């Protein structure tokens, strides 16, 4: 979806309505709020609203509701926000199709609508803010190739892919494959589809290790299932931290709470974060831009926040790493 034209139009509406005021009210509609990630997002949004708002001369007030994973309830909640006359609506959609009706309703009321993390599958919002899963893989793969070069190792890798119907999984495989083709330090021996099923992470990794005993590294499409990979490596006595001769080089995506202690322990070598802080920072930038009548300058897929590359050397000092702080 092309967000830039829609964003410009909405910004113009805001300006016409005299919404260049210093105070703006943001209606935030959560689909659910049960996870540490969601708590982190909200806290970062509020903190960034104060920081960026002060710099921009804008005071942001939040009106927040939660839909408990019910698309109908979310539609009703958003209707409430429209009725309350908020200046901007931000929503993390429970249902990519159902959110379209809410976007239309907001458009009809002249209120800019920003989808957050989950894109709308039907109606284009004013802007979309989310993570850049392609860049996540690109930066991980590049950092990993640099690491292999520094260590003087020829990386012979197993790629554990996510569900091939998931755009994030496709983007991550694409990013890894591009770097694999460009860098002689790494090569992919086998691609293993896991359908995001931890059991297939384990059995697929075990099968790949048996078929390719020369493998010495892996790219893992998400480290939510890192313990499953650990099981497979323990089976062949290759679960060991960096510095140990048995160490198996691991490049992962997301750096979720379960993976943080493993990176701190030297088992995971490189990861790019699914970065709640960067998502929130970008969202507030977009909201302020819209409130000022400016074009947030989103790309064709939206304003995608890039993750940060983390290694065992930097994990202790990296700031605002939600997976370390929020449990």
């Amino acid at each position, binding site marked *: 979806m092309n967000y830039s034209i829609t964003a410009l139009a909405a910004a113009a509406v805001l300006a016409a309505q005299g919404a260049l005021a210093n105070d703006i009210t943001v209606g935030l509609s959560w689909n659910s709020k049960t996870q540490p990630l969601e708590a982190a997002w909200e806290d970062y949004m509020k903190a960034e609203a104060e920081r960026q708002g002060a710099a921009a001369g804008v005071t942001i007030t939040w009106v927040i509701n939660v839909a408990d994973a019910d698309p109908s309830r979310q539609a009703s909640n958003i209707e409430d926000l429209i009725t309350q006359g908020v200046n901007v609506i931000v929503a993390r959609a429970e249902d990519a199709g159902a959110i379209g009706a809410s976007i239309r309703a907001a458009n009809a009321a002249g209120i800019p609508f920003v989808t957050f993390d989950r894109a709308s599958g039907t109606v284009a919002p004013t802007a979309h803010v989310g993570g850049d899963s392609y860049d996540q893989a690109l930066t991980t793969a590049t950092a990993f190739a640099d690491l292999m070069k520094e260590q003087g190792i020829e990386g012979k890798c197993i790629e554990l892919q996510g569900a*091939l119907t998931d755009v994030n999984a496709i983007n991550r495989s694409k990013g890894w494959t591009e770097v694999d083709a460009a860098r002689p330090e790494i090569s992919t021996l*086998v*691609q*293993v589809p896991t359908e995001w099923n931890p059991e297939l992470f384990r*059995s697929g990794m075990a*099968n790949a290790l*048996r*078929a390719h005993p020369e493998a010495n590294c892996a790219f893992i499409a998400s480290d939510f299932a890192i313990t499953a990979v650990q099981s497979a490596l323990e089976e062949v006595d290759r679960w060991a931290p960096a510095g140990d001769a048995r160490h198996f080089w691991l490049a992962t995506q997301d750096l*979720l709470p*379960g993976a943080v202690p493993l990176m701190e322990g030297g088992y995971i070598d490189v990861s790019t974060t699914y970065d709640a802080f960067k998502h929130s920072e970008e969202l507030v930038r977009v909201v302020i831009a819209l409130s000022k009548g400016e074009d947030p300058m989103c790309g064709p897929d939206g304003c995608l926040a890039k993750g940060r590359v983390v290694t065992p050397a930097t994990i202790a000092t990296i700031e605002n790493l939600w997976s370390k702080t929020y449990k």
Partner: protein
Amino acid sequence: MMRGVLNYGFPLILAGLVVLFGVLSPSFLGLANAMGILHAMVPIVVVATGMALVVMLGKLDISVGAIGFAGMSMAAMLIDGAGWSPLAASAAALGVGAALGALNGFVVVVLRVNPLIATLGTMIAFRGLALQITDSRVMVLPDAMRNFGNWTIGPVFFDVLLAGAILLAVHLVHRETPFGRTITAIGNDEAAARRIGLPVGRTVFACFVISGVLGALGGVLGAAQVGAVTTFLGKGMEFTAVAVVVVGGISLFGGRGSVFWGVLLGALTFEIIRAGLNHVGANPYFYQLIGGGIIFVAMYAAALKARETRLQD
């Protein structure tokens, strides 16, 4: 020779697959790989064993995957929140499985709801319960539990021995006990079974309880292998269990088939295909196409055999 092919078509195809994958990837034929295949099969074998009993009745239980998730979610909360030992928590998971299986049995036997409809509803409810319990979080299990899930005795994984013992025990119960014969009678003709005074209601109820317990055990063993409880636990497992049972030759109409050979052959088929495709580095986008094609050929061979048998009768 033709009769031999018809009688043993399905196992022959399976053997042919093993040879093919072995030629394409010599490591496929090693002992380590054989043990790995059996190890990966454990959760589905346990779940499908319970499913087999229900299918023998001529009924279905499509809540088994959700029961596995719900049971293990409860266990993970007891470990994480209440400091229970993994062993005690796993036992509690089996208790949850029994309770949820009993609920299914009540709905089917007492309320007389169609089993497919009943367990479709409970599948959704049980998964929702589990998501509430875990807040949809990934719950990492203690190392002791992951070590148990991957514990070996010599070259053999302990859970393979456990799953084998369960499968054999249920098979013998089905083949050698009055309870098992009642299951077959109900599967062949439930009305006739009632008329001759067989305890139809109690037997159906008991089978749903057993299915629930084995569904929960499958969840425990699956989570122990991967070292975590995630929202993916048990997802789709009910449909895989039905497919295993059907591919293994147990009739969906009830009354026919062997629990042991049916579950073993069915589970081996799926796991050999997946492991083989991993070994040969098949294009990930072709997995489902190739897997579906192989299963079609195996089912066609089984159908030819069934037709030949009917012609002889």
